[in-house]
């Protein structure tokens, strides 16, 4: 192949390239018209780029035209289910702009964290920025406000109130169940390796939910903007009374380590409760995730399996 390259005349080659680049540089001027269908009062073609907002909308029965990272949502969030017809936009921090343009949405819902990344989106459709994780207020209150905002801008008034009261009653229900819990405090983690985990605390949705339940979050240490800290096993070892809860999926080597690792297998909390695993729940989720988390937590701490260290999902 390179032999062929060598045989071309340099001048012709250059001329060709120059001509091409000239054509390509001029083309921006050609098709510039940008039509959009007339907007109805109630937006019908809603796209959602943020995971927590998508989850909240789906929980209220608002099915978006498209949302970001559908496959990831199906694995890491699971509930509420995404209907088959929802179109995938790609990565949350870089939704495919060409696909967005083709979809011709009349409303884009996203958080300011993502929105500032693509300010030009406003050329496409009005953007509604809704923040659940921000420096003002706590996620739970923000999540309630977010649900109301989503219902309002999509013209589904009333659905937010249903979701809110449903969530609060789920938390109440969990609260009643948890009075019979053996563990009075918990450590909610995502296990990364036998020695490393994310532990959720202040600023997290989990913290807000636990605050409404008759159990305590043992982790009072510092957390980041999203409400978790990446810690090592020795940092959580001192919380001997807290039940260690791992949100699934849990890496394979952790299961092996529960048996083999001298520290992990000897931890008082593991000896007492085992490693309690919990089905996937959005760890940076919205209002629905709050209700789901309280359900799962109550199940995990009171179910028969908890005593044996395994909670079957």
């Amino acid at each position, binding site marked *: 192949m*390179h032999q*062929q*390259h*060598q045989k*071309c*005349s*340099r001048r*012709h080659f*250059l001329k*060709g*390239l*120059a001509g091409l680049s000239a054509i*390509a*540089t001029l083309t*921006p001027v050609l098709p*510039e018209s940008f*039509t959009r269908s007339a907007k109805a009062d109630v937006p019908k073609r809603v796209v959602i780029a943020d995971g927590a907002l998508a989850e909240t909308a789906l929980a209220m029965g608002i099915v978006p035209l498209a949302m970001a990272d559908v496959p*990831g949502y199906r694995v890491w969030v699971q509930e509420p289910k995404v209907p088959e017809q929802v*179109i*995938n*936009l*790609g*990565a949350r*921090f*870089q*939704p*495919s702009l*060409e*696909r967005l*343009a*083709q979809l*011709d949405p009349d409303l884009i819902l996203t958080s*300011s*964290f993502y*929105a500032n*990344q693509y*300010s*030009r989106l406003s050329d496409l459709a009005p953007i509604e920025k809704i923040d659940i994780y921000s420096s003002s207020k706590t996620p739970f209150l923000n999540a309630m406000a977010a649900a109301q905002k989503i219902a309002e801008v999509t013209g589904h008034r009333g659905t937010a109130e249903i979701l809110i009261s449903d969530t609060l009653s789920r938390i109440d229900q969990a609260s009643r169940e948890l009075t019979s819990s053996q563990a009075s405090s918990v450590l909610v983690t995502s296990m*990364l*390796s036998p*020695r*490393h985990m*994310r532990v959720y605390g202040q600023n997290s949705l989990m913290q807000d939910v636990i605050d409404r339940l008759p159990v305590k979050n043992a982790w009072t*240490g510092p957390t*980041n903007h*999203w409400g978790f*800290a*990446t810690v*090592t*096993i*020795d940092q959580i*070892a*001192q919380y001997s009374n807290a039940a260690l809860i791992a949100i699934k999926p849990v*890496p394979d080597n952790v299961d092996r380590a529960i048996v083999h*690792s*001298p*520290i992990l297998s*000897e*931890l*008082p909390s593991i000896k007492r409760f085992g490693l309690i695993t919990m089905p996937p729940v959005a760890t940076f989720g919205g209002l629905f995730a709050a209700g789901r988390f309280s359900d799962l937590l109550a199940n995990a701490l009171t179910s028969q399996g908890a005593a044996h260290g395994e909670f079957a999902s």
Partner: protein
Amino acid sequence: MTSQAMRRHAIQFHAVPVSLCILAVLLSLLSLDIEAGSLSPAAIFDLAAGSDTRSLLLTQGWIPRFLIALVAGAGLAVAGALFQHTLKNPLASPSTLGLAGGAKLALTLVTLYVPGALAIGQETIALLGALVVGFLVFALARRSGFSPLIVILTGMIIALYCGAVTTALAIIHHEWLKSLFIWGSGDLTQDGWYILEPLAAKVCMGAALAVALARPLEMLNLSDHQATVLGASPARMRLLCLLIGCWLTATIVAAVGIIGFVGLAGPAITRMLGFRRLRSKLLMSAVFGAVLLCAADQGVQVLSGYIGTLVPAGALTGILGGPLLIIMIRQLRSNSQPSQNTSPAPEPDQSNIRNHLRVLAGVLLVIIGAILVGRDIHGDWQLQLGNALNTVWPWRGPRILGAMAAGTMLAIAGTILQRMTANPMASPESLGVSAGAVIGMIAIVFLIDAPTAWLQISGAAIGAFITLGAIFALTRKSGYAPERILIAGIAIGALFDGFIAFLMAGGDPRATRLLAWNSGSTYGLGFDRASVLAIIAVSALPILPAFARWLNLFPLGPVTTKSLGVDLSISRGVMLMFASILTAAATLLVGPLSFAGLISPHLAKLAGLRHALPHTVGAALIGAALMVAADWLGRMLFFPWEIPAGLMAAIIAGPIMVWLLMRVGRGAS
């Protein structure tokens, strides 16, 4: 040199290792005090004998962690010393040869695509990755006679390539790779002795083998000819030496993750102390490597307590490694000039117009194709004309324009650097300006809650120019000697990598976005910014003829160039500034695009463009086409997922580059 001056010199050289040892002891005591609550031996023994959680944390946590730092540090330093000895290169080490990157890529691929294979052991997979990279680097470098700079640059570029692929995977499968990021950052936390024991046995075996072979290996200090006369087989020796080094590296990487630069620093300190014989060099390197990693890890333990987030030892040594490389540049004798093996290929046959048309058609196809071919709403391939094109054009057009401009600028910068340094491996990425720009942007992203694009760009501009200033300051004394500039660039890149490893390990969601940006994303580019970029690119072209004479002379080597009446300092300074501005401009708008600046000059040369001016212009056009193709592939291949253009360019260009390097090497030998 007077005896007094010599003594002062010796004291200076001893100061580093002595203070390092004191630091290690102090930090260890401090962290032991935090761990055990007291420093009295009786209390510690009592605690160790107990069976509660705190006792367990001491006997199964702190003690194995302390020891594994010593073992891993010693092993890496021995590997580094072996590489440095074999390659006669003071900058060789497991991290500068790209071995750790290879191991990480192999593990990433296996974790994602054949998780079942993890059962055969992380170590085996890491070893395979390291060996593949090792053989690739050595095969490529052997053709240049293991010239120190070529070895390091080849290693660095292979490391960049492995990093690019790992990053592409991380962008799509971020959640799946969380655990891998933790491993990759090199955190030494232990939960028992089950990692330490096999590692210690293997490292001892490797080190013992190296020490036992020290005498015959000493032969490698002689020239190959002398060694052969003495009855040794230098080629076999060298291979053995490198194999032991690779094996040590892979074992340690698989067990504790990526710990940069200990393998570089251990032998460097030993050299400062003036040890000459290989056996003592190996032993002392092991000692200093162990002390160094121990100090870093104990420091990290104390630090983590205050910061409240995970600070992996590997990220810290990575960050410290940058400045270390910069110090070592100053010691590197400037006569380690790369061998000038950019021998011209045979003059092209100019008669075949059909082939010429084929290339032309190819490039035409790239640009027209990038404009017209896309995916429809269901993700099916579609030729987009009229309305379909109108819909996507405001999002597609600027990216094509931006990619062309960025490719042009990087290719011009690359051609200038390659001609100026007479080094086929020079590229804008190795200037370090890209990394500097990225560091500036990171600062903005982390200081401001939700920064706008323009704020981020300002941060990047400031970062780029500070880096540029630093590189000028560091290399001014040597008259901007090319190899020093390149290594300064690598050093800044290393600093940046350490920082990213730290962020990824902490699991900060902002890190993914940085990864995407850092891999050269044209995402969200508008015609406003794309046009600015295009204007800079086009305005660079008329300046090129001014450099033509210098660029024609520089490949002949500095001595010839100087004797022909060119002021080396001025000409180098001016061209460097020019290349840096172009690199910074491209980086600011579309991220530090890897490899476009490296490969385009080679492709232009392949197309038969030899003289400076046509070579540069040809490279610029090829660079533009390459970036457009990469941007298109990145957008369309996994639609609606996007692979950043820079990353895609790197992935396309990598294999071409390996082929080119082998070709260049063959031409020279």
